[in-house]
């Protein structure tokens, strides 16, 4: 065991070196370069908000919370904000609002008192801040209490859900329901097969060939009869186009025996 420990030590000679630190208000935020990958590490106390930071500073300076030296704590607070800015940390506006309030409080206390003014206004302001801080701290403690309660509670388990009809509706299905569903599936299957048959297509070339044969074999072809053979809209279009095509190529000619009568196709070549 000792051997391995020694090996480990020699492998990391940098471990003993102390990283550069900046001390602000007794806090020790650290900026340390990690030797392995040249990354800059910044350790800063994490503050949820200005009240958090203020409380932290007060505790660090071991100041009696009921008798806060506003001037001193304001300076510390501003130093911290400056550091945060130097480190380019995004800062919530709340921090700046608190800074402004502190500075206002500080300047009021520095000014000579107006002898005509009512009883100590600045004392009230300071008491207000103290109350705010105390209230905030109470709820931080309450949050910790909730945290520990939740931790214990997460270690407690209740039984898994029992399968009932409510959470398992399939149970309520009878044999006939099953048969009906099965029939539905069969019906659906049938429809699908019918679709496939319909998909059969007649190409333009085939249609022209068909028309040519029919005209040749009969000598004269009623177009109505030809179109009736088409089983789908698509085939009908193809049939129509094939008639136009053969007329264009002068293979057939179309004629009508009477006005609005049926159109007859006849082989155009004098055969």
């Amino acid at each position, binding site marked *: 065991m000792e051997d391995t420990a020694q090996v480990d030590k020699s492998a990391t000679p940098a471990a003993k070196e102390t990283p550069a630190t900046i001390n602000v208000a007794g806090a020790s935020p650290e900026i340390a370069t990690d030797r392995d990958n040249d990354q800059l590490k910044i350790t800063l106390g994490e503050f*949820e*908000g*200005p*009240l*958090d930071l203020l409380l932290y500073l*007060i*505790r660090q300076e*071991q*100041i*009696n*919370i*009921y008798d806060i030296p506003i001037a001193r704590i304001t300076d510390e607070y501003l130093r911290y904000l400056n550091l945060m800015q130097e480190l380019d940390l995004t800062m*919530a506006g*709340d921090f700046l609002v*608190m800074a402004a309030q502190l500075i206002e409080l500080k300047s009021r206390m520095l000014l000579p008192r107006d002898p005509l003014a009512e009883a100590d206004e600045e004392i009230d302001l300071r008491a207000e801040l103290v109350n*705010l801080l*105390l*209230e*905030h*701290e*109470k*709820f*931080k*403690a*309450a*949050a*910790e*209490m*909730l*945290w520990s*309660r*939740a*931790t*214990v*509670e*997460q*270690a*407690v*388990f*209740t*039984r898994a*859900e*029992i399968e009932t009809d409510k959470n398992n509706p399939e149970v309520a299905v009878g044999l006939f329901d099953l048969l009906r569903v099965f029939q539905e599936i069969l019906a659906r299957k049938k429809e699908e097969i019918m679709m496939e048959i319909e998909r059969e297509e007649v190409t333009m070339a085939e249609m022209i060939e068909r028309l040519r044969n029919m005209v040749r074999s009969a000598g004269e072809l009623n177009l109505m009869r030809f179109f009736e053979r088409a089983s789908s809209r698509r085939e009908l279009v193809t049939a129509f186009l094939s008639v136009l095509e053969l007329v264009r190529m002068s293979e057939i000619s179309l004629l009508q025996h009477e006005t609005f009568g049926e159109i007859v196709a006849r082989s155009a070549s004098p055969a």
Partner: protein
Amino acid sequence: MSKAKAASEAAAESIAHEDSAIEGRRSISSAELKSIVEALIFVADEPINAKTIADVIDADRAAVEKAVAELAEEYDARASGLQLREIAGGWQIATRPEHHENVRAYLKSKPSAKLSLASLETLAVIAYKQPVTVPEILEIRGVQSPSAIKTLLDKRLIVAKGRKETVGRPMMYGTSKEFLIQFGLKDLSELPSVEDFQDLAGGSDS
């Protein structure tokens, strides 16, 4: 006749007589009552209260309460792996926290993500100050907490409790039953009083 067979026949007989039990309030022994109560608490999906149990089995509520209390004591006395505990205004059978590692190993579950500090603080303010509005929470926490409130609403730990009749009619929030369950509380009065935290808060500098 084997013991198991006798037991199952006895059970079948009691099921067959179920109807007669519902007809009227029978005089049942305290041992029997305890047994029934335990069965009901076991199957209940949510903490079940004595009144509900009493109504279902048509028994005296005080007798049910006594039975539950005795049962809970029995669980403790024999160092059972289960506990019968009062939570969110009802009774529940649950494992004891000390077995959590083994239970998790079986369930293959990890502790679910904890709430962030911001969410917990917000929840603490809501729990103690309810019904409370967002601006009031801001005043105590010193920071805005919109995401925390959304998280708490998503986790159903808090619920909207109407609007406050003041400028802007802000929404008021309070804790839910889920909050009691997740934090193992009988009711809100079981929360330590805020004044208890006073010493904690003011104490560290003196």
